[in-house]
C-alpha cells in the first residue's frame, strides 16, 4: 500500500525505462498516494516516461477518477444514475453534502472529505451505491449505502452477490471460485492436446456465439480475421470496462469466476496466435481488480499462463490494466488509446482492430462474458452450446436486472425466455405496477408494459425496434417520473461524451438542456430533440454518439406527451 509520505521519485522508480503505455498505471500510483495529480507530479512523470507535460495534463483531465486539485482524505463518489436515482441517490448526495456543509465537487473545510457525483458504478442491484477512495489506500465500493454517517466513516459493509436464472453455465455461485475450486484449465488443456488453432476457431464459428459487449458481432469471424492478419504480433484484449448504466454482469463474472475469464483469454490467444493479452478493467471495479490480481498470480504459479503452458509450445501472459472513469473507454478503439496512455478518443474505422488494433497491431478484443462463453464451446463443442437458445441467439446469456423488481441481480437465461417470465418468475415480480422497461442500458430503448411478452433474443428484440445491448434490464413502476429518468440518461451522455466529434460533443449538451426543461417545454422542443437525435445517430463518429439519443427518441415515440408535441 503506497504511503502518502513516499516521495515522487520513489513512487516512480519502477517506471523508469518504461514506455508511454505505463502512463495510466503511473497516474494511478500518484492519485492513490496523494489524492490528486499536481503539476509537480506531472513534471516528474514527464521526465520519467518522456511524455510532454501538456499531453499528461490532457490525459489527467480526461478521466473522472483523476483529480487536478487537492482532495479530502476520503473522496466519496455517489452514483446518481437511473437505478440509484430510484433508490434515493439525490437525497443521499444532498444529505452527505449538508452534513459537511459543502456542494458536490467540493472538499470539506477540515480536509476530511470530498464529495463527487458519479456516473453509474455498476452496482445497480445494490442501489443506492457509492465508492470511497481513501488517500493511500485502494478504492472501495459501498452498496447499498445504509446511512450517511456510516458512508462518511468509510464503512463499506457487506455486498452480497445476487444471482439467479434458469441455468448455471457461466455463473457458478455467489462465492468467488479461486483455482482450487475452479480446477485446472480443462478447456485449454483439451485445446492444447487435441485441437489446432484453426479447429478452435471453426468450433467457435459453428457455435454461433456473438459478442456480449453490445454489438453482437460473430466471435469466430473476428478471431479468424485476426488470425489471418499478417502483421505481428497479435494481441488479445478483454474488455472489462463495463460502464453501461444498468449493466453489472461482467462485474459478477470477474468477482466470482476470474479463472473462467483468464482461461477464455488464453483460448483466444491460442486461436489467433497471440502471446500477450491485456485485461482492461474499469477503475470503479476495485474488488474485481484485486480478485483478478490474485487469480492471475495463481494461474501463473500453476503454469496455466506464462511460458510453455502445461508443457506445450504455447506461451501466453496477461497484464491487468485499470481505467480511471470514462464510459467511452469501453469503445474498443478508445480502450486501445487508454492502454497506450492517451486520452480515450475513439479512432475512425476502418482500419478495424482485427488488422490495426492495440499498438497498431492485429487485435481480438472481446467482452468478458464472450470470453467466458468460449471455454464451454471449446470443452464441450459447438453442438453442446447450441442446445441453449435459438438459431441466432445461441448459448446462455447474462442479464442485469435493476430497479423495481423484488430481487435485482444477475440472471443467467436461455434466450427465448420472455421478458415477462424473467421478471415474474425469476426476479420475484415487479414491485408496484409496471410502467416501463429500459432494455440495453442508457444506450438502449424503452418497452411499454404491453411489450414484455417479447422473447429475449437478439432477433426478437430487434424486430420490435428494441435492443438486447449489454443485457441491462431496468424496471420502472408507476411511481417513477419518466422525465426524471430521461434527465439522468441525458446527463450521463453529456458527462461521458468524449468531445471528439461535433454532433455528440454539442448534441449531448443541447439534448440535456432540452430534457431538463421537459416539465415546461418551449415550443419547438420536440422537433429540436428529434433533429439533435437524428443528427447524433447518423453523423457521430462512434457508438456513443450514435446511441446517445436512442432512449430519448424511443421515449418520445412511445410517450409523445412527455415533451408536449407542438
Amino acid at each position, binding site marked *: 500500500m503506497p504511503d502518502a509520505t513516499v516521495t515522487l521519485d520513489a513512487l516512480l522508480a519502477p517506471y523508469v525505462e518504461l514506455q508511454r503505455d505505463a502512463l495510466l498505471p503511473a497516474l494511478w500510483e500518484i492519485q492513490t498516494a496523494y489524492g490528486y495529480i499536481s503539476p509537480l507530479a*506531472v513534471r516528474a512523470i514527464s521526465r520519467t516516461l518522456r511524455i510532454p507535460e501538456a499531453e499528461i495534463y*490532457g490525459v489527467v*483531465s480526461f478521466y473522472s477518477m483523476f483529480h487536478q486539485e487537492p482532495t479530502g482524505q476520503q473522496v466519496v463518489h455517489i452514483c446518481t444514475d437511473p437505478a440509484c436515482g430510484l433508490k434515493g441517490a439525490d437525497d443521499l448526495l444532498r444529505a452527505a453534502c449538508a452534513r459537511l456543509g459543502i456542494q458536490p465537487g467540493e472538499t470539506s473545510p477540515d480536509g476530511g472529505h470530498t464529495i463527487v457525483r458519479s456516473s453509474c458504478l455498476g452496482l445497480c442491484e445494490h442501489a443506492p451505491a457509492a465508492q470511497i477512495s481513501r488517500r493511500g489506500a485502494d478504492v472501495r465500493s459501498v452498496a447499498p449505502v445504509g446511512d450517511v454517517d456510516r458512508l462518511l466513516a468509510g464503512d463499506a459493509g457487506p455486498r452480497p452477490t445476487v444471482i439467479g436464472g434458469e441455468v448455471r453455465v457461466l455463473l457458478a455461485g455467489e462465492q468467488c471460485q479461486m483455482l482450487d475450486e475452479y480446477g485446472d484449465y480443462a478447456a485449454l488443456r483439451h485445446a492444447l492436446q487435441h485441437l489446432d488453432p484453426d479447429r478452435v476457431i471453426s468450433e467457435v464459428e459453428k457455435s454461433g456465439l456473438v459478442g456480449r459487449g453490445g454489438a453482437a458481432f460473430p466471435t469466430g469471424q473476428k478471431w479468424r480475421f485476426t488470425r489471418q492478419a499478417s502483421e505481428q504480433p497479435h494481441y488479445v484484449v478483454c474488455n472489462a470496462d463495463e460502464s453501461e448504466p444498468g449493466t453489472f454482469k461482467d462485474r459478477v463474472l470477474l468477482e466470482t469466476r476470474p479463472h473462467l475469464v483468464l482461461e477464455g483469454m488464453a483460448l483466444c490467444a491460442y486461436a489467433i496466435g497471440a502471446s500477450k493479452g491485456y485485461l482492461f478493467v474499469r477503475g470503479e471495479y476495485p474488488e474485481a481488480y484485486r480478485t483478478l490480481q490474485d487469480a492471475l498470480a495463481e494461474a501463473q504459479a500453476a503454469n496455466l499462463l506464462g511460458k510453455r503452458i502445461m508443457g506445450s509450445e504455447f506461451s501466453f501472459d496477461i497484464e491487468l490494466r485499470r481505467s480511471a472513469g470514462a464510459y467511452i473507454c469501453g469503445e474498443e478503439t478508445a480502450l486501445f488509446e487508454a492502454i497506450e496512455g492517451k486520452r480515450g478518443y475513439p479512432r475512425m474505422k476502418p482500419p478495424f482492430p482485427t488488422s490495426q488494433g492495440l499498438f497498431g497491431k492485429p487485435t481480438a478484443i472481446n467482452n468478458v462474458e464472450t470470453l467466458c462463453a468460449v471455454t464451454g464451446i471449446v470443452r464441450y463443442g459447438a453442438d453442446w452450446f447450441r442446445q441453449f437458445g435459438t438459431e441466432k441467439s445461441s448459448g446462455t446469456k447474462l442479464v442485469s436486472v435493476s430497479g423495481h423488481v423484488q430481487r435485482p441481480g444477475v440472471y443467467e437465461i436461455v434466450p427465448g425466455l420472455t421478458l415477462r417470465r424473467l421478471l415474474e418468475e425469476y426476479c420475484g415480480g415487479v414491485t408496484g405496477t409496471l410502467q416501463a422497461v429500459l432494455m440495453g442500458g442508457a444506450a438502449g430503448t424503452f418497452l411499454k408494459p404491453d411489450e414484455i411478452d417479447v422473447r429475449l433474443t437478439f432477433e426478437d428484440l430487434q424486430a420490435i425496434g428494441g435492443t438486447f445491448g449489454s443485457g441491462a434490464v431496468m424496471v420502472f413502476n408507476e411511481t417513477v417520473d419518466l422525465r426524471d429518468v430521461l434527465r439522468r440518461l441525458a446527463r450521463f451522455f453529456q458527462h461521458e461524451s468524449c468531445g471528439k*466529434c461535433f*454532433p455528440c*460533443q454539442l448534441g449531448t449538451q443541447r439534448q440535456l438542456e432540452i430534457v431538463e426543461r421537459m416539465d415546461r417545454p418551449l415550443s419547438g422542443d420536440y422537433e429540436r430533440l428529434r433533429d439533435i437525435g437524428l443528427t447524433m445517430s*447518423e*453523423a457521430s*463518429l462512434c457508438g456513443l454518439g450514435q446511441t446517445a439519443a436512442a432512449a430519448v427518441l424511443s421515449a418520445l415515440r412511445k410517450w409523445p406527451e412527455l415533451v408536449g408535441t407542438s
Partner: protein
Amino acid sequence: MTDSPQTVRLIIDDREIAVPEGTTILAAARQAGIDIPVICHHQATTAQGNCRICVVDVNGRRLLQPACSVVCQDGMVVETRSERVVRSRRTILEMLSASVDLSEAPDIQSLLDDYQADTARFPEAARRRYPLYDDNPFYVRDYSKCVLCWRCVQMCGVDAQYTFALTLAGRGFHTHVSTAFEAPMLETVCVFCGQCVGVCPTNALKPKIEYSLEQGQFFDKRSE
C-alpha cells in the same frame, strides 16, 4: 509496389467519376467540381473526422460517412446533399453557433447561410466562454471562438512541430485547447513558430499585432 494505382469508378450526385484508388470522396468530389463543406479538414493536418460537416450518404448505409476520410470504392453511389445530409449539417451548424462565437469565422458564416441555419434555434443554450489569453508578445488566444477542429494541437504536435505545448483538455462539451495546467504560454515549451495561428479557421488564435491594431493599442502608445 511500383504499379500505377488502380482506377476506381463511382457515382457522386448522379455523375460518373473515375479516380485513382485511395482517393477520398472529398477529393473525388472536388475534382468533379462538386462542393462538400469542411470545417476540421486541412491539407496540413491528419484527418480525424471531427466536425462531421462533410458527411455524405453512401450506398444507402445507415450511418452517414465523412467524405474527408472515407476512400472511394468501385461501385459506390454517393449523395452529397440528401435530405438527411442537409439536416445533419444544418443541425450541427445551429448547435455550433449556439455555443461558439463565430463572428470572425467567415467560412463557417457562409455555411450558415448556405444551409439556412437558424442561429437562434437553441434558446437558453450554454455558450463556451473563456477568458482571453493575452500572455505573450506573438499571439492572443480567444477560446470562446474555438470550434475544436484540433488543427492547432495537431500542428504543435506530430503533424508538424513536435513541440507539444498544446493539448486538448477536459471532456465532451467542455473540451478545450490548453497548455499544461493552463500555464501562460511563456512558461511552456512553445517556440512561437506560429503554425497554430496559421491553421486556425475562426480567429481564436490571432497575431498580437492584428489584435493590438483592432484594440487601438499599438497606435496609442506610439502617437505620444
